[in-house]
């Protein structure tokens, strides 16, 4: 996801040396692979979901437990995405525009959730906030529930989706440098004016790209959420957990119906991602040609 921009540029400059049949072979292998592993399952999800007709599909989606799962998923995303947006912009700003000791350590830390299995990150929260955990007894005294409740789900999701926005913005902001901001300051703009009128317009496509990826992951996260949720029906189940439960109960059509929501989300994400990636590439190219 992250290095896509670079990829494109290299390709533009490369000269084609392979004979036509090699190119066609490679392209068809890639397409066949995509069809087998991406398009086919996606199509299967929708056909399975609609197997018993529209009415059964809608009934599965409007079932109270499912609605509660959808609501919880939306709440989680609505909390996580803005928080990580704020964090991502702040971190990217600090990393791209300033030099300070510990900068590369901060970059490593931001990447941490990418390298840790989500199950482990869920367990970390159980270890901290669970009944047997470090803060568990004290939390219980004050009657605060984090694990097996909504706060735990939100915390675990924040952790997992932590890097998406920052990782998008850091290379973009580094490519753009800080001269435009400095120019704005010398022209009398305040810090906020500089951000809103100079920095933000330059990174808005990167932000959109990061937000959409962050959102997709926040809604689709299974592992970490599964550990901290407790799977209480109608209360602490998110969409992915609901899909699992339905599936384990052999209600395939209902499971696929709910899963199709996530698949739809993926398609929307893909479309927005393509557009914003293209726009972002344009701004990076503009930044580079200006140098």
């Amino acid at each position, binding site marked *: 996801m992250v290095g896509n921009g670079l990829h494109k540029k290299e390709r533009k400059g490369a000269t084609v040396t392979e004979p036509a049949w090699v190119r066609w072979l490679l392209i068809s292998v890639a397409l066949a692979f995509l069809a087998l592993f991406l398009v086919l399952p996606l199509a299967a999800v929708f056909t399975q979901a609609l197997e018993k007709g529209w009415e059964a599909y809608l009934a599965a989606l409007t079932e109270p437990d499912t609605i509660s799962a959808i609501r919880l998923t939306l709440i989680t995303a609505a909390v996580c995405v803005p928080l990580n947006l704020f964090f991502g912009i702040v971190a990217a700003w600090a990393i791209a525009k300033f030099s300070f000791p510990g900068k590369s350590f901060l970059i490593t830390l931001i990447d941490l959730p990418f390298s840790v299995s989500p199950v482990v990150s869920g367990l970390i929260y159980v270890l901290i906030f669970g009944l047997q955990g470090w803060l568990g007894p004290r939390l219980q005294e004050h009657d605060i529930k984090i694990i097996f409740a909504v706060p735990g789900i939100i915390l675990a999701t924040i952790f997992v989706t932590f890097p998406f926005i920052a990782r998008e913005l850091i290379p973009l902001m580094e490519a753009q440098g800080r001269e435009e901001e400095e*120019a704005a300051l010398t022209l009398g703009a305040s810090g906020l004016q500089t951000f809103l009128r*100079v920095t933000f*317009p330059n990174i808005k496509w990167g932000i959109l790209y990061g937000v959409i990826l962050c959102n997709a992951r926040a809604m689709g996260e299974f592992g970490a959420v599964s550990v901290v949720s407790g799977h209480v029906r109608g209360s602490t189940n998110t969409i992915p957990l609901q899909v699992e439960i339905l599936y384990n109960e052999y209600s395939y059509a209902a499971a696929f119906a709910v899963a199709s929501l996530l698949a739809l989300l993926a398609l929307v994400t893909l479309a927005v991602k393509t557009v914003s990636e293209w726009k972002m590439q344009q701004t990076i190219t503009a930044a580079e040609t200006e140098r």
Partner: protein
Amino acid sequence: MSIEIEGISKSFGTFAALKNVSLKVPSGELVALLGPSGSGKTSLLRIIAGLESPDSGRILFDGEEATKRQVQERQVGFVFQHYALFRHMTVFDNIAFGLTVKPKKSRPGKAEIRDKVHNLLKLIQLENLADRYPAQLSGGQRQRVALARALAVEPQVLLLDEPFGALDAKVRLELRRWLRRLHDEIHVTSVFVTHDQEEALEVADRIVVMNEGRIEQEGTPSEVYDRPATPFVYDFLGSVNLFHGRVHEGTAQMAGLDLSSPENASAQHAPAVGYVRSHDIAIERDGNGSGAIKAEVRYLLSVGPLVRVDLVLSGSDRTIEAELPRDEADRLQLQVGEQVYARPRKMRVFVEDYQI
């Protein structure tokens, strides 16, 4: 507005960019900070702008302490080497930016802003390009827009960081002449940073030569060029030949010649270095009289209106470089391998321990 810099020092980590630098820029002058990269000239400019803060020392604007003032309050116009135009804004919006971010009560009205921007566009001769984006402009055009943008807020001081550094030779020449004319019209106190001695000599009222975080010399272009204060300045401004020898009571002995060096009248048998600019070496066929060194022509190269002659001094393998005007070279009809006499017309001698 005049600028006074008093004892400014600045380090980046272990690198000392500026070492106790003091400088006065009189109101209305165009001053060049000239030096090689790493000499601290850009750091000094950024400190004047308020984009960096000094570790010690003070900056005074018109005699008033300004060291602690924020960038926004300093009323400086800053022009960057890579233009730093706002890429998502049109030329018009770029130039208007400084006016539109003013606080409500001092912000001019829309019509006033439009008039002002159009006047500036006229000044930079880009009236037809108001709706273009920076990416659609050439380098020279972008830098003119950057200049107009800086001038729009009527700065008290204009600071330019290698303003022509990223441009082609021809555009560079045009633009620096244009800047000189512009300065003659608007007389805003200006400081520009450059590593190009020709640019500094041509454009500036005064030149400040910097090296390793210190000021080597300051003065008018002719002072700096004709009477370099230190070997560094000699070396940096124009191509130069070095002679090693000794100096004793105002007379230097270099390459078998006795040369008068009145500024070293007190020297006693001191080792010394003599500097002669390439165009201050005359080439003669016959070595009548004293003051000429026997040499052999090693290499000839025409560079535009000049001919560069590499000479090897007889009795050593030291080479020196002379520059002759084309017609002089044509008259002499020099051949490679020929014996000639090289006569230094002007030599500046520095006692060796003076060197840094």
